[in-house]
């Protein structure tokens, strides 16, 4: 079935992929088949890169690579992983959501050798990728390039200049340096800009619902205030937590300047807000800009991506990493490792990122200089600052770190961080009452 799908889709992708994948079979030799389930890319051309790379690799190594691309709408990919873990059968390689590596660690093949070699070549992986893919000191998954995304601020520079007096292109030019005003790019500046744009009728489109865009940017906000909801063992650290109260207070003030229905926004609502021209800023990968380029070019050519603002504890960047893991019950573990190593190499990562119009973020900081990020436009340089660069002085972040993965994945799926803000800003509770709810909710998840 999987092969059939591949060839069906292969037709769409164009002749190259299909010959690469099927030509060896013509010789009639028994070739091992490696089954992979990858994240179905949100950028329409995104799957093409993996198809091309796996085709190349398969031909060179005489392995059939069968690819399934599984969507995350309705958490389909996560459900697939759960079903396969339960039945101990399925694909050889599977993409796992940020927190799922820890949840399935016992059933995943260690990949220390692969990661060891990649790290020797390219330097250390970024700390969130390492934190999520490592379990009890060992690598259980290879941080993926395809699908991994940052969520920096995607701005309408004209609106921000007109209404908030911020020249974001000057602050964060398409060069490796900070411009004037970059040092002041803090959450307080952000709040003033949000208020100004709200008054001007182009409010910031920051989702506050239960989808990853919302959870991720709020996670980065919490991190930049040093606010943690649990410790490493999962015990709530809510009582007497000054940072948490500080960030809650900030978020509630910010929420007043957002559209009144952000509480129900999904991952696409913020994109639509930007594309429709109703919003001056969203936190998003360049996909929103790319769609605007197609449907509303007059919006796209006024877009500019800049880092997230910084808080009292520094600048944190919302980061959603995918991991490629190998099931321990799979039969093609050696081949799977070789493929993942191949996909992790710089040349492969660059193909992936370029094919996705710059959307994909490799896990190694040394790879933040791909040409695509400076070349894409209009306006040229609009996504120059999309990958994390040294002069941003920022740290990637994942919501609910450093909680243990089983608990964190539940908090992440149930979006406890946006809900606690919503209880105050939308539900009218006091901050104390909402934090009390949060503590009970976390304790409830830990029980039973």
């Amino acid at each position, binding site marked *: 079935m999987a092969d059939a799908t591949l060839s069906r889709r292969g037709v769409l992708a164009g002749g190259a992929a299909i010959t690469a994948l099927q030509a060896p079979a013509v010789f009639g030799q028994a070739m091992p088949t490696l089954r992979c389930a990858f994240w179905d890319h949100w950028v329409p051309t995104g799957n093409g890169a993996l198809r091309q790379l796996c085709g190349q690799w398969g031909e060179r190594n005489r392995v059939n690579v069968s690819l399934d691309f599984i969507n995350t709408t309705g958490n389909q990919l996560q*459900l697939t992983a759960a079903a396969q873990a339960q039945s101990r059968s399925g694909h050889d390689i599977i993409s796992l959501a940020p927190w799922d590596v820890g949840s399935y660690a016992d059933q995943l093949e260690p990949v220390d050798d692969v990661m060891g070699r990649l790290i020797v070549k390219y330097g250390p992986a970024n700390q969130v990728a390492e934190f999520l893919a490592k379990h009890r000191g060992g690598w259980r998954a290879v941080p993926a390039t395809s699908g991994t995304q940052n969520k920096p601020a995607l701005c309408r520079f004209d609106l921000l200049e007109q209404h908030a007096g911020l020249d974001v292109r000057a602050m964060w030019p398409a060069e490796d340096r900070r411009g004037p005003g970059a040092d002041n790019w803090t959450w307080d500046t952000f709040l003033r800009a949000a208020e100004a744009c709200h008054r001007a009728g182009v409010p910031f489109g920051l989702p506050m619902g239960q989808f990853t865009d919302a959870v991720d940017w709020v996670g980065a906000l919490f991190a930049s205030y040093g606010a943690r909801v649990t410790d490493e063992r999962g015990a709530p650290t809510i009582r007497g937590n000054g940072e948490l109260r500080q960030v809650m207070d900030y978020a509630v003030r910010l929420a007043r300047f957002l*559209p*009144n229905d952000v509480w129900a926004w999904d991952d696409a609502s913020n994109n639509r807000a930007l594309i429709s021209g109703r919003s001056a800023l969203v936190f998003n990968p360049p996909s929103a800009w790319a769609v605007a380029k197609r449907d509303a070019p007059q919006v796209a050519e006024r877009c500019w991506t800049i880092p997230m603002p910084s808080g009292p504890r520094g600048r944190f960047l919302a980061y959603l990493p995918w991991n490629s893991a190998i099931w321990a019950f799979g039969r093609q573990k050696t081949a799977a490792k070789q493929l993942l190593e191949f996909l992790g190499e710089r040349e492969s990562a660059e193909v992936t990122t370029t094919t996705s119009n710059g959307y994909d973020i490799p896990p190694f900081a040394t790879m933040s200089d791909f040409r695509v990020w400076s070349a894409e436009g209009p306006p040229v340089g609009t996504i120059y600052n999309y990958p994390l660069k040294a002069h941003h002085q920022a740290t990637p972040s994942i919501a609910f770190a450093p909680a243990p993965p089983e608990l964190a994945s539940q908090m992440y*799926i*149930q979006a406890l961080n946006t*809900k606690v803000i919503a209880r105050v800003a*939308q539900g009218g509770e006091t901050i104390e009452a909402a934090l009390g709810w949060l503590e009970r909710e976390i304790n409830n998840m830990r029980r039973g």
Partner: protein
Amino acid sequence: MADGGAMAAPRAAAGGTMQRMARRKSTVAFLLTLPLLAVIGGLVAWPAAYAMYLSTLNRRMTAFIGLENFAILLDNETFRGVIWQSCFFAITAVVLKALIGFWLAHMLHHIPTKGQRLWRGMLLVPWVIPPALSTLGWWWMFEPSYSSLNWLLAVFAVPAVPWLGEPWWARVSVIIVNVWYGAPFFMIMYLAALKSVPEQLYEAADIDGATGWQRLRYVTLPMMRNIISITVLFSLIVTFANYDIVRVLTNGGPRDLTHVFASYAFQVGVLSGNIPRGAAVSLFMFPLLAVIAYFVLRGINERTKEIGA
């Protein structure tokens, strides 16, 4: 119910052939109902029992924890909200569906018979489209940046409504879609019932000088009492257990304030990987369903008796 007197004749006729016939009959009958028994036993009764067993396990399904999952749930504000929302959603939606359905059936009944088919055909369309798909259309109409409903409201100078963003509006939106989908069904049921009310009763009422309201109150409603109660009870069950509309429209948000039992069970059991607690959530539907089932059965028995009499 199974026809009461159907088998009277063979039983009355005595004799060897008939006895053999009867023996063979029960074998044949058993074989004929065997697949049905397999479906009911294997795919309904067994899973239901299995759900009860599952609900007594811990998250990793490694230990028996008794009623702990139920206790945890009742202890949880979000879940108490789910109970309240499910009841509110089901009751409001069913009442509205019944009222609108009744009204439309009445209106259809009033127009000349030859036009009825066409109108009935148009009005039944929402019921025919799979709800998961039509809800997509509604979702698009509610979409905050592009809402075509808000555009219509703007024509009448009404400010934009945050359809899915504000908890009460989100609940209203879910109810609107459910009513839109279900009201035509009530209409069809009531129309059939209205047509079965003998015309003489109305003529008699007219002779007595009854007003329209009195005709409704003393002729129509009593005649339709049974069908009304059965449709309402049936609809209560289905509405109570609804999943697709909430799933597509709000996914339970904002702040879990539109979750109903089914969507919450899905979120807890399947998405967050806590199968036992998810099973416990859906088992909460059971007592209410049992009560409704009791009343429905009673109603159907009465109806069968009335028809038989």
